[in-house]
């Protein structure tokens, strides 16, 4: 059957089950109760600290077919996933489902575990590097479930992603399971993506290389749901966890796009006191923040909050008074860690608070503007951030579809030509974020406005921005680079792309070799 954006979705997908076809960004209304997590008890005098991962496996006990969850705050410096899965393999456990909020190149060892049957299922929001490539090439029999950050929190809360054991990489812990992300050698900042796992998993194991005297302060994840604390020699490599500083791009084309995006924000009438904003940590996205800041400075505008992944640049904007608050679900650099630790206006929030569609209101709903990227966009404004031009998985929604749905104005920025490929296509290979939630597409050669937003179109034209039809931009790109050949995909589904509400917006099919 076809979903509402014309994607062919099987009614049942082997290894995934019955599908709910995507029917619009706000169509599904939940009529259910949240999953009731297991009730726990802990008698006085009992210890939570366990010497080895192996011992935790035995005490729980972890058995074949369980779901183990992990967060991705350690990014490419993560040591916990690999250590836990090595333990599982050594104990001969098979058929595990790994629910890891994002997969990075450091998780390459997963491939071996997939090949030898230790891991047979993967549930994630983003994946890059060798694991993504292996999945795209069909290493797993069952398709990977690709969710949004908000969608993962929703799935956990609604019982659609039941977790047997959550392994929480904790930069700092005390012996009774209070955790934070801001102390210790593997400090990573906010622990926001781990909150739902801690709350709902049957068993919660903190894995840390830094145990302090009870009670830990500050506390991000409290002792009440944490069953075990395991001390390992090294939980993560700081070099892969944080960057020293995140820098604005120097690429002139990227800067041109960013400057234009900032003008769009202003022309849309949103740059005024109380302005709220989300942008990525990448070079161009961060440059948008830079140009927005220049205008805020000139016009003496004080914004309300900046949201999302927090970088040193956003911290500076908070400290210099451009924003009153930062809402932080993930910190990217040392400055973000320093700030969240010391500044009461820098708030640590959960993935649920950030972006879940099924609660009484998430933070993305309060956004005026979000600036997002794309690997492809089509003439209906549907965006792909999952597969690259070769059809191989190289990313995922993360918060993309969530923020796009929530913000008053969603701006996608991208070079009209990437390498020698036009970025605008008739139909994206993989739809991640539906066009109905995308308002403006900004390139170095012009700006396209979603025809569903005629009032915005008028504002941008009135401001003298180079507004063009998206078809016109597509033709410009094709005049320069030609029309690329279509990729041929097989029938085999290697990933199911869930929209934030749990419906299926698209599937990723294996590329013909």
């Amino acid at each position, binding site marked *: 059957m076809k979903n509402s954006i014309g994607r062919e979705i099987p009614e049942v997908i082997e290894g995934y089950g019955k599908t709910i076809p995507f029917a619009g960004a706000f169509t599904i209304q939940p009529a259910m109760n949240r999953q009731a997590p297991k009730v726990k008890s802990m008698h006085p005098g009992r210890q939570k600290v366990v010497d080895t991962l192996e011992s935790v496996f035995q005490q729980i006990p972890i058995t074949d077919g369980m779901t183990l969850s992990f967060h991705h705050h350690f990014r490419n410096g993560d040591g916990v996933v690999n250590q836990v899965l090595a333990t599982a393999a050594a104990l001969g456990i098979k058929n595990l489902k790994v629910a890891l909020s994002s997969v990075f190149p450091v998780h390459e060892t997963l491939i071996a575990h997939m090949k030898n049957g230790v891991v047979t299922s993967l549930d994630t929001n983003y994946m890059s590097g060798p694991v993504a490539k292996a999945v795209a090439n069909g290493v797993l029999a069952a398709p990977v479930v690709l969710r949004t950050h908000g969608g993962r929190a929703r799935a956990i809360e609604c019982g659609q992603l039941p977790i047997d054991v959550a392994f929480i990489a904790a930069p700092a812990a005390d012996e009774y399971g209070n955790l934070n992300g801001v102390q210790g050698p593997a400090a990573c900042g906010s622990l926001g993506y781990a909150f739902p796992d801690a709350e709902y998993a049957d068993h919660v194991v903190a894995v840390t290389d830094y145990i302090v005297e009870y009670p830990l302060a500050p506390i991000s994840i409290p002792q009440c749901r944490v069953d075990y604390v395991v001390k390992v020699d090294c939980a993560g490599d700081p070099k892969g966890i944080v960057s020293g500083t995140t820098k604005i791009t120097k690429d*002139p*084309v990227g*800067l*041109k796009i960013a*400057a234009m995006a900032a003008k769009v924000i202003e022309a849309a009438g949103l740059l005024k006191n109380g302005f709220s904003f989300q942008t990525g940590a990448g070079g161009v996205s961060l440059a948008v923040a830079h140009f927005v800041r220049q205008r805020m400075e000139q016009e003496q505008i004080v914004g309300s909050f900046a949201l999302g992944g927090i970088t040193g640049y956003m911290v500076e904007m908070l400290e210099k008074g451009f924003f009153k608050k930062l809402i932080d679900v993930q910190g990217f650099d040392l400055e973000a860690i320093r700030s969240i630790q010391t500044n009461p206006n820098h708030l640590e929030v959960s993935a649920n608070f950030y972006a879940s569609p099924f609660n009484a209101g998430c933070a993305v709903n309060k956004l005026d503007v979000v600036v997002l990227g794309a690997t492809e966009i089509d003439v209906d404004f549907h965006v792909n951030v999952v597969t690259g031009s070769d059809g191989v998985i190289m990313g995922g929604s993360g918060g993309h579809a969530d923020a796009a749905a929530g913000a008053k104005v969603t701006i996608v920025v991208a070079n009209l*030509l990437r390498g020698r490929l036009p970025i605008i296509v008739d139909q994206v290979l993989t739809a991640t974020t539906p066009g109905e939630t995308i308002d403006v597409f900004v390139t*170095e*050669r012009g700006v396209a406005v979603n025809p569903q937003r005629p009032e915005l179109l008028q504002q941008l034209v009135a401001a*003298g921005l180079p507004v063009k039809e998206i078809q016109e931009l597509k033709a410009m790109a094709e*005049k*320069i680079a030609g029309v690329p050949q279509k990729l041929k995909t097989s029938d085999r589904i290697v990933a199911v792309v869930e929209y934030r509400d749990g419906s299926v917006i698209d599937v990723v099919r294996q590329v013909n070799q």
Partner: protein
Amino acid sequence: MSLRRTMLFIPGNNPGMLQNGGVFGADSVILDLEDAVAPQEKDAARFLVAQALKTVDYGTSEKVVRINPLDTFGAKDIQMIVPCQPDVLLVPKVESAQDIEGVTRLVAQAEMEGQKPVQLIALLETAKGIALAYQIAQTKGRLVALALGAEDYTAGLGAARTKEGQEIFTARSLVINAAAAAGIQSLDTPFTDANDEDGLYQDALTGKELGFKGKLAINPRQIDVIHGVLNPTAATIEWAEAVVQAIRKAEAEGSGVASLHGKMVDAPIVARAEHILQLARKLGVEVMQ
């Protein structure tokens, strides 16, 4: 006279930049075959620039190519580039009227029949070039502007190049004066620290106040700042309209001189007013025709 507030250098050996050169809104792009290109890459760059001229849409930007001096690769550049219909050639290290005349002859030979004549801009970047600025500016035919290249010039003088630019004050004034005397444009030397926006602003302002009509740019980031300095303000546009109205009224009455608010309005003032109105039109401001 063409608007040349900004003339952006694009390395002639960088395909990505050649392809994107038109997106930055510079009044002119200068596809560079000279300093940006190492000697062993000159041939490849010449082919690239020729292809770019034929295929890339530079939008409203004027297409300028900086060729090499005639004593190196200049003649080869002219032979291949001119038939690709650039608007202008920027001739480096010009030291005499003869240099421009030499280029003029080669350009005439290389032009195709019916081709829009290729104009020339002389880049003065030696003490001798500055000393002979007026003689060069008077070269008849294709020359539309003098540009100052201060880096080589100060190196030749043995003077340290500073942000304040005291060391190039005389050269700037001579170039501006020579160009004005010959009725062509003068264009200011680039500001070479692409990361110093405030420094660029000050430098462009100094150039504008001395009389330059435009400025060379080495980075797309510099364009908006320079335009910000050179664009007319609302007050100047109103003044320019008043000047043009006054002179038209006077002309209708049979006089070549008018007065505005008690001050005489003559030909140079009218020329300045017309330049301001031309700028305003380019910026989409509705002004009198």
